[in-house]
């Protein structure tokens, strides 16, 4: 009984930490972008203010049940991802519900949110949302290929389908996976560019094309839910990458340093590039990233 209560409490703490860190990263990203663009930029806590304001806004829109559930799907998917990913090793405050085969489950659950979102956006009846959703799903098909290839390579190489297993393998050998299986790391990082939806892969909500795409009918509390689930999801994904390729983290500070270093890659790349068209984006993912994914599998099979 004690442990269950402890686990629930820990889950809440994990969620709060993920929310705060994700939001802060979003704010820092806005700040850094502004500095690159010769501006002063908003304060780093601007995203919190935005989120509070959105939460206080009235929402009198009703497009049907699926529209209401769209945000919930996203939130559920983000929280489930967060719960499976081990945040810190050897820490009671951050329990994880990992199990044998969670890596495969993760692959499924990470696509679950966008699918729910797609249903919700479809019901709003806004053609921008519908086109945005088709674009999002096409892009997901694109980056899933290198991402799955990279993960499969890791599974084959280390004969495990759990994240903790991979972390144990890194601790055992003493080197990070990004050095011992570099091809998988490259493929995964390239897939990450698509996952984070920064430019050039921000085709889903491209404002000048689709007026913010799937969320164009969502304001106020809906947007608040999506914003916070996005922040949680950002943190979960970054932590997953750190766990898989950079040996995990023993305390929060190391985790923050590692995740932020990873977060800088899509952010800085996004500042200097225009946006791809949908078919160009998919083609890009099926080019070099998939090639590196195949190399990773070759490496895993041969060595």
């Amino acid at each position, binding site marked *: 009984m004690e442990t269950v209560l402890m686990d629930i409490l820990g889950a809440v703490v994990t969620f709060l930490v993920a929310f705060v860190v994700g939001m802060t990263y979003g704010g820092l990203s806005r700040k850094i*972008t502004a500095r*690159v*663009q*010769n*501006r002063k930029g908003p304060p780093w806590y601007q995203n919190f203010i935005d989120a509070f304001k959105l939460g206080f806004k009235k929402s009198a829109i009703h497009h049907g049940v699926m529209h209401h559930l769209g945000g919930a799907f996203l939130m559920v998917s983000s929280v489930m991802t967060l719960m499976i990913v081990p945040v810190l090793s050897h820490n009671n405050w951050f329990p994880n519900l990992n199990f044998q085969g969670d890596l495969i489950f993760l692959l499924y659950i990470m696509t679950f949110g966008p699918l729910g979102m797609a249903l919700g956006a479809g019901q709003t009846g806004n*053609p*921008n949302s*519908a*086109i945005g959703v088709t674009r999002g799903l096409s892009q997901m098909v694109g980056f899933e290929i290198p991402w799955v290839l990279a993960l499969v390579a890791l599974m084959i190489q280390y004969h495990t389908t759990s994240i903790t297993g991979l972390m144990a393998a890194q601790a055992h050998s003493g080197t990070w996976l990004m050095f011992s299986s570099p091809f998988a790391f490259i493929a995964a990082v390239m897939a990450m560019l698509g996952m984070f939806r920064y*430019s*050039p892969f*921000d*085709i889903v909500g*491209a*404002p*000048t*094309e689709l*007026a913010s795409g799937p969320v164009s009918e969502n304001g106020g509390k809906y947007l608040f839910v999506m914003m916070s689930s996005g922040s949680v999801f950002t943190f979960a994904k970054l932590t997953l990458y750190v766990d898989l390729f950079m040996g995990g983290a023993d305390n929060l500070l190391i985790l923050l340093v590692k995740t932020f270093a990873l977060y800088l890659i899509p952010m800085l790349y996004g*500042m*200097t*590039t*225009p*946006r*791809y*068209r*949908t*078919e*160009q984006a998919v083609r890009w993912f099926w080019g070099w990233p998939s090639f590196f994914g195949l190399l990773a599998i070759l490496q895993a099979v041969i060595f």
Partner: protein
Amino acid sequence: MREKATTLYIGPQHPGITGNMMVKVQVEGDTIVKARTEVGYLHRAFEKLQERRNWLQSFTLLCRFCVPEPDPVEESYARAVELLEGREVPERAKYIRVLMLELARIGSYMLWYGGQNGSLGLYTMGQWSVGDRNYILDLFEELTGGRVYHMYIWPGGVRRDLPEGFAEKVLRTMDYLEKRLKDYDDLMFDNTIFQKRTQGVGIISKEKAVEWGVVGPVLRGSGIKSDIRIDDPYEVYDKLDFIVPTHEGGDIWSRALVRRQEIRQSIRIIRQVIEQMPSGEYYNRIPNPHKWALPKGDAYARTEATRGEVGMYIVSDGGVHPRRIHFRGAAYVHGITLLEDLLIGENVADISAIMNSLGTCPPEIER
């Protein structure tokens, strides 16, 4: 097949639209099968209002015709009035006018940098160039008192002389811009994704460009050397040394390159103008504007703006009020008919980019 098409309203409230207009497109998947433009959201009936004002009062309305670059409109009107009246313009005023027009050209292209790249998602470029455009607006402000609306090029010359030390400031700004343009090139033209997004998109062939009456950088981007500054020279452009860049592609990329090279030529022209500028009178003073009547007749003057040929057709019945003023906007010819034709078969993602590369300016269409 046609039944499957989704109707998509790009505008009037849409971040991707230039100005305030609407393009109603039908898309199948991502491909546009039909496009209809709808304009008229900005119709203020300028030309009707000018019939109620006198020849000089019209000036306050003129610069609102197209906000990104009001000076060519003023220039066309001033020259048409001078042509009708037979009023001489002092030599110095002509040089100051050219200086003004070229500064306006650069300023408008800086805004275009922002629009073109914003439509493609490269927001950093827009932030840089629109921020740097402020330096040109500062020059305007010092010279004319206004950032956006100048009302400076008047019939008979210009409204006031250059302030002390203005020429040095212009040269310093030009040096700064030249330095910045290198950064812009690194970010924009050397960017593979920018090339991929723009090459082969929105192609206007040579024949089509002539047939549809396309003008300005769009025509030069289709490989036809045509520039009113050379063909039908006004002010002192025939005494200045500059070239008219052309590119063969006819796509967004070619038009972008043409615009990029024209900034370079404008800087060259400004340097020459400042070097050659004579001293003397700057204004051939007009009589009391409330009693200033123009002889009966009509006149048409045209100017090369960043969007192409802008012209002003004025008709006088011998009174203090114009009989008719009719403005020919450069975007007027391609903003509606050509755009509707050009969008068919393009990707829905490229609507905004194509509109920006054509330089569609709705206030100029609707007036």
